[in-house]
């Protein structure tokens, strides 16, 4: 202890602490007047609101979300249990009924082959929704994994994966899918369409995941976690990924609608699902020649498709608003 410092026991210190200058008396409140407990304690009666909790609270108040959610739930129910909504067989077609008018049990009339339009619209939901959902799951899994690895580890892994991503990015989704599907024209499984769309669709998710992982990687909590002895893998899964997830969810929701449109387009081009599969895309493409004679046959499957896609895009918008309050679309 040197001469310059004031030891608490010294008389000098006593003078310093005990006798404040005039006017400074009340600057420091005596300890017994403000118990430390009151200042330092954290209100633990409610759990801390995480990003996800606050996003969920914002979502519940958003009419756009409620509307989209109701629509999506309804569409999924139709896709899972079409028999609840119609008793007609969509594949029972009688040429006697060709382009027949709407009647009681056939509210939307008949198409050129004499099939019931209403039951085909109902049963077509399963194909479109399956293609959309399955493609999105694969795209998020593959694209998310590759993007996360590239963004998190950087270096040569990033360079290699980014070049592979560039290769797939340079081939437009539709073009690649057509070339691939041409090879499997005889198969009538929806998996070939799912596979083709996923093979050329994962790139977008990979790029976005990479970007947001790179951003989350450099945040302080990650450094803190490493300092506490966390392994890189634990960091990636516990800290980086949950914080990088938001933009991926938004893109995935919106893309789901895009994949449904792409499936319809591929069926229109004659390389998607065969006409034996009941699908909106297939029905739209067979109905296009009837536009001049009977536009309603074209209208109903198109409207069903548009409403489904719209529901997923609105859901994407609502989720984006909730997760990123800065970019409100409403």
């Amino acid at each position: 202890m040197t001469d310059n410092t004031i030891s608490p026991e010294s008389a000098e210190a006593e003078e310093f602490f005990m006798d404040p200058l005039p006017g400074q008396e009340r600057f420091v409140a005596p300890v017994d007047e403000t118990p430390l407990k009151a200042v330092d304690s954290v209100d633990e009666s409610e759990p801390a609101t995480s990003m996800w909790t606050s996003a969920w609270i914002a979502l519940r108040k958003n009419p756009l979300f409620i509307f989209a959610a109701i629509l999506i739930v309804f569409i999924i129910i139709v896709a899972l249990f079409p028999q609840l909504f119609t008793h007609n067989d969509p594949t029972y077609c009688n040429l006697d009924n060709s382009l027949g008018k709407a009647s009681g049990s056939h509210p939307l009339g008949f198409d050129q082959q004499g099939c019931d339009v209403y039951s085909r619209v109902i049963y077509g939901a399963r194909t479109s929704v399956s293609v959309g959902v399955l493609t999105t799951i694969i795209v998020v899994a593959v694209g998310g994994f590759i993007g996360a690895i590239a963004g998190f580890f950087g270096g040569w892994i990033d360079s290699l994966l980014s070049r592979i991503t560039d290769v797939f990015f340079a081939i437009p989704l539709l073009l690649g899918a057509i070339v691939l599907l041409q090879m499997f024209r005889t198969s009538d499984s929806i998996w070939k369409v799912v596979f083709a769309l996923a093979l050329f669709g994962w790139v977008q998710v990979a790029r976005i995941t990479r970007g947001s992982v790179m951003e989350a990687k450099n945040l302080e909590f990650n450094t803190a976690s490493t300092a506490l002895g966390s392994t890189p893998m634990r960091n990636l899964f516990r800290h980086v990924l949950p914080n990088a997830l938001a933009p991926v969810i938004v893109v995935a929701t919106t893309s789901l609608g895009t994949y449904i449109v792409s499936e319809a387009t591929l069926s229109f081009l004659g390389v998607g699902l065969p006409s034996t599969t009941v699908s909106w895309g297939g029905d739209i493409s067979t109905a296009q020649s009837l536009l001049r004679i009977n536009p309603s046959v074209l209208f109903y499957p198109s409207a069903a498709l548009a409403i489904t896609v719209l529901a997923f895009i609105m859901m994407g918008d609502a989720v984006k608003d909730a997760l990123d309050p800065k970019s409100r679309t409403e």
Partner: protein
Amino acid sequence: MGKYLLRRILQMIPVVIGTTLLIYALVFALPGDPVAAMFGDKPVNAAVAAQIRSEYNLDKPFIIQYLIFLKNALTLDFGNTFAGQPVIAVIGRAFPVTIKLAIMAFVFEAVFGVVFGIISGLKKGKWYDSVILIVSLLLISVPTFVTGFVLQYFLGVKWGLLPVTAGSNPGFIDLLMPASVLGSVSMAYIIRLTRTEVSSNISEDYVRTARAKGMSNKSVTLRHVLRNSMIPVVTYLGADIGALMGGAMITERIFNINGIGNTLYQGIIRGEGTLVVSIVTILVLVFVVCNLVVDMFYAVLDPRIRYV
């Protein structure tokens, strides 16, 4: 800048090689016999088939075939189509039409997308903002071919305002409807993107500062809000060139345009591997170069971005 450009061009080489290899593998290495496809419905003559195989190098291992293709492609020699025409001649005939169509679609989506997006973003909540939003959502959710058929029916057949199909050598008027249809979905995305950007930038501090300094409303909007809102839009436009090329396949089929999309589609359906791979190679080159140009354009929009 020069160094950056050189690095980017060098980076393009593996991408182009990888992409052509991928397409080549999809077309030639997967099941399906291109020689049998060539005969169509006629019986396959073994001797002729063998000769064709050696002429198209189909008897050699896959990777050798690809290297021969690559070597010839460097001299723009893409071989012949099944009908015996040089592939490069077919492409040369079809490409100008598609370039015209794509440029028109690009201008359409860029101009209308940005203009409507700005109007919507600046006047959020007004009735025309809602109209613009609803129309753009509809354009996204209805498949292009349905939009195409409906427009073709009303504008072309019923009201006779525009030509129903574009002939062999289409002009500006012939391509007006196809180009709008081709660009419509991207236009809707650009409207939404611009709207979000403009409305979030408008509440930034630098905009308030500019207003506080006494800048006029017009120059605040043009010089501060718009310039900063354009960066994501330009990125989108750059990546969209590829989508336009893919979309051209559908539009050209609806409106019966003899462009590269239609040629490519026919090639895919007939199993003309050489034609397909050649066209895709050229499309990939166009796409990669366009993306490079877009990246260069960033520096103009955002002076903070410097290429070293």
